[in-house]
């Protein structure tokens, strides 16, 4: 009896800690969401906490009317889709051949790739290379140089290695070549890992801003959404200082900032819960191989 009681107290503590964690993760985002929906007056009066006061969609309609913000959102969406497709193609092209034990030079190629995970030249050599390649201030610098992640490639390779070899061998005996085996056997079996890695690549691109700041500072047209947001959030005055549009009530600019943040956040928040089952396997595979 005493044992049961103490374990009940233990369960209570555990549940309490989890509720606390949920609130800690959820409330900050909720707070911004509520602010984005509140009227400028109530924001200035500082009485918006957990529920919107005087619900007002002006901030959203203003952000939606801002052509600079809209273009950046659309451009980043296109860029993210393009980069994800490119990155996934490269990842599969790199990972698949490396699972063939018979492939001559496999070990050399493997270590050739792994070294780059532990030692990188750094920002300045990259900058100088991109300059020589004419990539500085070109939107291609956001897509090409960081397209393949060794870490994701290892996850892909580990997953492909776990597919029973007998499937491949019997197909080889039937005379199928490696490309055919990849398309008709391996890819259909790897949808879960492809979904996971696509999510990783897409989130990385959607959320990235430092590459644009480093390598594309003067090409403001092609700023990704996060870099534009950085200037919007950092601007002490209001959004119009960053985008030269919108209007200038102080409280309104706070609501606009909040609405701008929400627009860039909602796409990801809508996608990731559905992929949860997959990315857990992805992360675990990555950890297994270090």
């Amino acid at each position: 009896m005493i044992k049961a009681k103490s374990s009940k107290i233990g369960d209570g503590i555990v549940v309490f800690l989890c509720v606390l964690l949920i609130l800690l993760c959820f409330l900050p985002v909720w707070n911004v969401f509520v602010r984005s929906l509140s009227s400028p007056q109530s924001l200035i009066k500082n009485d918006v906490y957990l529920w919107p006061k005087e619900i007002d969609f002006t901030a959203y309609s203003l952000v939606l009317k801002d052509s600079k913000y809209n273009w950046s959102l659309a451009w980043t969406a296109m860029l993210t889709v393009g980069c994800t497709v490119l990155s996934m193609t490269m990842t599969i092209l790199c990972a698949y051949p490396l699972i063939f034990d018979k492939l001559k030079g496999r070990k050399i190629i493997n270590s050739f790739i792994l070294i780059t995970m532990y030692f990188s030249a750094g920002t300045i050599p990259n900058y100088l290379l991109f300059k020589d390649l004419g990539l500085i201030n070109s939107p291609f610098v956001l897509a090409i140089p960081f397209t393949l992640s060794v870490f994701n490639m290892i996850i892909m390779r580990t997953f492909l290695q776990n597919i029973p070899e007998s499937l491949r061998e019997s197909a080889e005996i039937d005379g199928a070549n490696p490309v055919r085996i990849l398309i008709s056997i391996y890819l259909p079996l790897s949808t879960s890992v492809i979904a996971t890695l696509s999510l990783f690549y897409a989130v990385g691109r959607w959320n990235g801003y430092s590459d644009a700041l480093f390598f594309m500072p003067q090409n403001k047209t092609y700023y990704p959404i996060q870099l534009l947001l950085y200037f919007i959030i950092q601007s002490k005055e209001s959004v119009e200082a960053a985008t030269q549009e919108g209007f200038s009530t102080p409280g309104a600019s706070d609501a606009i900032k909040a609405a701008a943040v929400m627009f860039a956040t909602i796409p990801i928040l809508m996608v990731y819960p559905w992929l949860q089952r997959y990315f857990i396997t992805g992360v675990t595979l990555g950890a297994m191989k270090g």
Partner: protein
Amino acid sequence: MTAEAQALKARKRYKARLYYKRYWTLYAMLALPVIYFVIFKYIPMTYLQIAFKDFSITKSAWEMDWAGNNGFEYFIKAFSDRDFFYALRNTLMLNLLGLALGFPAPILLALVLNELPYKRFKKITQTVAYMPHFLSWIIISGLALQLFATRFGLVNTVLRNMGFESIQFLDKPTNWVWTYIFVGIWQSVGWNAIIYLAALTGINPELYEAAAVDGASRMRRIWHVTLPGLRSTIIVLLILRMGYIVASDFDQPYAMSNTLVTSVSNVLSVFVYNRGIKGTQKSLAAAVGLFQSVVGVIFVIGTNQIAKRFGERGLW
């Protein structure tokens, strides 16, 4: 004899031809990734020589003149630069605090989630805990700016209503450091717990049954069964983390920084950006980057060696 040797040779050649006929497509697939690694990972390494040379816009890296002091001019300059010294100190401080407080956090979270008896509630907790990982540092810094604002922020309003003084979370260097560490943990704790939760599913349930039969309390069960089951995962992740002790992230400190706290928020990556990309001191910045890479490799190899000495699997 010669006929036999010839036959052997011919067979070998036939086998090789068969091999390439069957597998040439694999090499064709690898071509693009290998070219990618050569161009974007290995060629930049040749540019590293500018760390030992006097940078000039008009010359290629191979043609520039060697720097003074046997080429180490810019390393000496870096180490006698006050800003570099502060950047190094800040990097080490933020990384060590992040390691000390941020490394155990996901382990504790995994232990707590593992004790949770309600499956559905556990799943909801996990989903919400993963969320911060999917937010960009720009957005997180925006959230932090609003929540921790001294006058109007939610946190300070709550503090004042409870009768405390408001705290300048983001405007005072010391407070900024703790806020930075806390936000860093907030962003990563759920995500990093995934690996530990996966490792926990590998623990033999019989061990728990045996512990229950022996009358072990919850705490004793965690200590004697759960934690030992996580041991090798913890060590591998610790090794990986050690490699990053001087490597400095750019996105979080740059997004969260403001002019009042640059004395603690300028880390090495920001220093490299300010001097080498915004400024014109390419050689100096490249030297600092090389220093970071080399120390990072030394740390990974070192911790791996130590882990092996303690009888763990290590990374290689």
